[in-house]
């Protein structure tokens, strides 16, 4: 199979910053981004805030409109897919969001939340109930969870529900937008293993978005690094996350503290040796005003 | 017949939990009963009264209660007050239903549509601005010739006049909800808009709308009564307003006549308002200003022996903090915590959420929420006992001796003050400096913490600077008066990793420069390895292990610590199994 499942080519996206300011300057959030995801693989998308990683995910899901470029799914152009097309795509492309507390409707029971994507696709009520039970089992939640409300569950459990919801229509790609960032350390590890387990069993592909390099390394086959709306480096996970070539990726790797005091001291020294680069990029912020020096600059060794 | 899913019949969905709570609330129950009784009385009027509402009888003019079969007497036209009273109830009920109904239908629909669809919003805003600027009362009166005083038509118009209020309420609620992730998830699931609006948006906002409905009923009844009082209304249809007006005119002759309608109107109004409040309490939860918890145990105010300063800067012993549960009991969130911090050293307080680490930090600053109870323990700073100290003493210590760096940069700055104004005020509260001197010092400090253009940032508002800059500002504010102890509560969790590294560098430098002790609260072992000399691990309110950084990372003793360290993702946790059909694409992709 030479055709990748998902192909993003030269994608541009501009936000028209609305608001009270009369000078609403448009901000280009994605600048000719290209990436691919193959069947059954995990592409990790790593970047800091403002890198546009979440925007890519939203564009793929149809929650944000690209201004140029293309998104191709299984050979078909879905860049400007209409509502009906999107509804059909819902069978193939799903999402797990970051915040386990607001991604589930607090007023609906778990069972209702999980059954909804099924009944919308035309599945009968009884069949839907059966599937809900199977889904809960797959993510390691008890069967009686379907009767309860989200507020009765912990963050990690809610995230499992979100995963179950994403799995309901048996998709081929799941966009995971920082799915473990809001979880505790111990829960994080368990939920990540669930993701991997599901991928091994069902062959679903992931577009895994995260700011945490270690998380991305743990789950991805390939990694793409984003910086200010551009892809600066792509490659196999071990290579990109341990021996990166692009200076920004190197900065990223050296900035992540390692959980060992001796190693961390070495890493800190290595970071200090990196060339001092004062980054001043007057990116217009949301008020339209150019807050110069919005970024922090890097100090060399003291 | 089981289908393998457990119980054969699913339990009743918990969404009626709200209803059940409502029934159990005494205020809601009483007022609802009163209202239902009143409405029932009105409906049963044909059965309960012997006379028509306009049936006048000369011998019953201004009659006393009980004359003949006039239960409450007769009014100045000789009509049965009791019958008219029940008739007024019906009038009010109809008024409430029409007024509220119309307002809700119009306001709710427009609010949902206007709130959800940005493009339609400008239209709805215009329309409702127009309706809102209409002098309402005037309109009702002007249209009298057309409505002929029929209260039903009048209430219809009033409902239209009330709809902008409902529109604004619903629009704001929808705007708040439509960006919630569960709405996004519904869209990704392929749900059509109508269903999203109905099932997700409307369902999520129903609380405030129901509450508003109760108050709308009250307003409708009130306005109709008022209009009737002024004579704007049908002469044949009885209403509280007209009865009160006639009673007022007859005040000297028969004062009781004004009492009956006033009483009943008062009861209806009071019940509606109290019911509305009860609804609000149940559906939204009371936001009551928590009272200072007087349930403190006997904490002896230990006056520290003043003399030689002990080597330990901060000593926490057996600290126990508890919060009252809804049932009234105390639940401990911190239990018997012991900590020691020497001058100039960095102690990492590590734990997951719910471990109590932030509570311990707040206790040391004396900024625990009001409801918190410290049931036992001691916190000594330089030998001086902090628990039980007066607010004044604590205030003197804060800023001057103890500093605090919070987690979230943006929400910890006053949005309506310039950064500089807030910093200067903080410095002047902790150190005795003039306004000009405070400004100078803070500008220098801003530069020291790495802000490129101090004067510009000084004059900026929080929303004009980035998260990383805001955190530097907060650090500057915390160390401005040169405190001996700095409590940093997850200072880098909300920041990008590159910024995090810089902030950690900054904190380390400042610590050396100012010879501060730092209590660093975090959940990240990497940060601990980077910055701390000693570690204390917390779990569910207790310290499970303490030791030097090196010791703990090499050979942690407690199983929980070991479990946490094992959960840390490191260089070795890489994906090894390849996905199917990947190799060819791999070869293509490598740049």
């Amino acid at each position, binding site marked *: 199979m030479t055709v990748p499942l998902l192909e993003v080519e030269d994608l541009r996206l501009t936000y028209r910053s609305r608001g*009270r300011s009369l000078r609403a300057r448009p901000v280009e959030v994605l600048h000719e981004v290209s990436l691919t995801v193959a069947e059954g693989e995990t592409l990790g998308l790593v970047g800091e805030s403002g890198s546009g990683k979440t925007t890519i995910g939203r564009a793929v899901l149809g929650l944000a409109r690209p201004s140029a470029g293309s998104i191709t799914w299984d050979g078909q152009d879905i860049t400007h897919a209409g509502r009906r097309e999107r509804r059909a795509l819902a069978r193939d492309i799903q999402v797990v969001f970051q915040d386990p507390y607001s991604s589930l409707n607090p007023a609906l029971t778990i069972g209702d939340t999980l059954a909804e994507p099924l009944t919308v696709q035309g599945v009968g009520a009884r069949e839907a109930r059966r599937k809900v039970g199977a889904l809960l089992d797959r993510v390691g939640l008890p069967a009686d969870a379907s009767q309860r409300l989200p507020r009765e569950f912990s963050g990690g459990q809610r995230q499992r529900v979100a995963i179950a919801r994403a799995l309901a229509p048996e998709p081929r790609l799941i966009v995971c937008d920082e799915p473990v960032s809001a979880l505790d350390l111990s829960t994080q590890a368990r939920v990540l293993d669930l993701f991997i387990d599901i991928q091994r069993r069902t062959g679903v592909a992931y577009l895994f978005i995260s700011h945490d390099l270690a998380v991305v390394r743990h789950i991805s086959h390939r990694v793409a690094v984003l910086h200010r709306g551009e892809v600066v480096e792509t490659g196999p996970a071990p290579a990109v996350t341990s021996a990166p070539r692009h200076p920004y990726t190197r900065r990223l790797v050296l900035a992540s503290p390692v959980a060992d005091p001796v190693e961390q001291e070495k890493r800190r020294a290595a970071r200090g040796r990196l060339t001092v680069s004062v980054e001043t990029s007057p990116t217009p912020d949301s008020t339209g005003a150019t807050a110069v020096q919005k970024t922090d600059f890097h100090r060399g060794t003291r | 017949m089981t289908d393998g899913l457990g119980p054969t019949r699913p339990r009743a969905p918990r969404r009626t939990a709200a209803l059940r709570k409502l029934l159990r609330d005494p205020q809601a129950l009483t007022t609802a009963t009163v209202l239902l009784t009143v409405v029932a009385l009105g409906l049963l009027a044909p059965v309960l009264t012997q006379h028509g509402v306009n049936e006048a009888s000369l011998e019953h003019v201004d009659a006393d209660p009980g004359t003949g079969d006039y239960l409450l007497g007769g009014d100045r036209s000789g009509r049965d007050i009791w019958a008219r009273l029940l008739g007024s109830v019906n009038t009010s009920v109809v008024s409430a239903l029409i007024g509220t109904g119309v307002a809700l239908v119009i306001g709710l629909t427009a609010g949902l549509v206007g709130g959800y669809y940005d493009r339609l919003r400008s239209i709805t805003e215009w329309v409702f601005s*127009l309706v809102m600027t209409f002098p309402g009362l005037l309109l009702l009166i002007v249209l009298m010739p057309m409505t002929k005083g029929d209260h039903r038509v009048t209430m219809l118009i009033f409902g239209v006049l009330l709809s902008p209020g409902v529109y604004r309420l619903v629009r704001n609620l929808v705007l708040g909800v439509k960006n919630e992730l569960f709405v996004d998830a519904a869209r990704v699931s392929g749900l059509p808009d109508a269903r999203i609006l109905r099932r997700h948006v409307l369902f999520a906002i129903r609380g405030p709308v129901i509450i508003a409905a109760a108050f709308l009923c009250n307003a409708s009844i009130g306005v109709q009564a008022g209009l009737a009082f002024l004579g704007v209304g049908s002469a044949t249809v009885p209403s509280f*307003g007209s009865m009160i007006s006639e009673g007022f005119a007859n005040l000297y002759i028969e004062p009781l006549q004004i009492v009956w309608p006033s009483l009943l109107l008062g009861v209806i109004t009071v019940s509606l308002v109290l019911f509305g409040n009860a609804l609000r309490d149940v559906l939204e939860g009371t936001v009551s200003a928590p009272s200072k918890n007087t349930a403190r145990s006997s904490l002896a105010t230990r006056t520290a022996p003043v003399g030689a300063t002990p080597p330990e800067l901060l000593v926490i012993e057996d600290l126990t903090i508890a919060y009252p549960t809804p049932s009234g009991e105390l639940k401990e969130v911190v239990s018997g915590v012991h900590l020691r911090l020497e001058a100039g050293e960095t102690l990492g307080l590590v734990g997951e959420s719910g471990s109590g680490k932030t509570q311990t930090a707040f206790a040391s600053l004396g*900024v625990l929420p009001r409801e918190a109870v410290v049931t036992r323990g001691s916190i000594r700073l330089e030998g001086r006992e902090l628990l039980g100290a007066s607010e004044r003493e604590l205030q003197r210590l804060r800023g001057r001796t103890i500093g605090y760096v*919070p987690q979230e940069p943006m929400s910890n700055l006053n*949005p309506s003050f310039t950064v500089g104004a807030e910093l200067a005020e903080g410095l002047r509260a902790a150190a005795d400096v003039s306004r000009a001197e405070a400004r100078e010092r803070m500008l220098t400090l801003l530069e020291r913490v790495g802000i490129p253009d101090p004067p510009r940032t000084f004059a900026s508002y929080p929303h004009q600077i980035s998260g990383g800059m805001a955190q530097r500002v907060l650090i500057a504010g915390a160390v401005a008066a040169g405190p001996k102890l700095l409590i940093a509560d997850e200072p880098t969790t909300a920041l990008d990793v590159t910024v995090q590294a810089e902030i950690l560098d900054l904190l380390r430098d400042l610590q050396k420069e100012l010879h501060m002790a730092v209590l660093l609260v975090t959940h990240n072992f990497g940060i601990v390895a980077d910055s701390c000399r000693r570690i204390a691990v917390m779990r569910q309110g207790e310290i499970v292990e303490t030791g030097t950084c090196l010791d703990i990372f090499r050979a942690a003793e407690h199983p929980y610590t070991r479990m946490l360290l094992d959960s840390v993702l490191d260089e070795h946790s890489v994906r090894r199994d390849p996905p199917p059909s990947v190799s060819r694409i791999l070869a293509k992709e490598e740049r």
Partner: protein
Amino acid sequence: MLLYVARRLATGLVLALLVTLITFLLLAPSFDAIVGNRLGAGATAESIRAMKTQMGLDRPVLAQYSDWLARVARGDLGDSFFTGERVGHTVGQHLGVTMSIVLVTLALSVAFSVALGVTAAWRGGIADRVVQAVSLTGHLVPNLLVAIALVYLLSIRLGLLPATGFTPLTDDPATWARSIVIPVTALLIASMAGLTAQIRGAMTDELRKDYVRTLRTRGIPARSIILRHALRNASGPALTVLSFEFIAMLGGALIIEKVFAIPGFGSYAFDASLQGDVPVIMGITLFAVLLVVVVNLAVDLVNGWLNPKARIL
């Protein structure tokens, strides 16, 4: 910013235009009845028709409206159908009367509500419960009944204050003060009910916010934090509530004015509407709409000053 103000005023004028036009259109069908009222008993269809022509009320409706508009642009609001007085002058007079009551009420309401609301939020506990009860009481009792009860108690029974009548401030301040005590009290209770609850709620929310805690850790005294920082941020929504109350009071004081025989804006509007005094009704409508526009604009500007994020640059 001037551009913003100009834009709002322009929008306001358009609104005034629309509202007065719609009002006139709604009045038009009643012209016959109005003229009949003016002629009094014994009016025949003949005399009504004749009078209509004389008054110019038989012309096309839109033509009549544009004439009125043209005159208003020149500053002439016309004369009352029934009393012949200059509309502009009389409306202004009545408005002044109501304003003197409403402004006093609102000033007192703000002072009391802020004091009570802040105390309730800060102290909590019993103080909070008391304030909530006070606020609730205000909501519970309809204006109407309060007014009547007060008149009964203070005037009829105890003879302390005049039951009815109004003396303008300019004539004699002392008598003016006495004549407005009961009306102001009646209005005050209702106004405070809403405002106190609003401020209390907003302050409670504000005091829970992160920045308040951080300010405390700097060593800033509590009073300073509450009054300078928290209150300022909590005022925004309270201001909006205040503006609603102001506008509502202009018309809503109607019942109070009737009960106390005060020649105010509300009762003037009421009488004019009942009679169908078209020029007066149009004049009142125009005044009312413009007042609403101006008040809303003022509130938005103050909000912008209070909250820099909402500021119009």
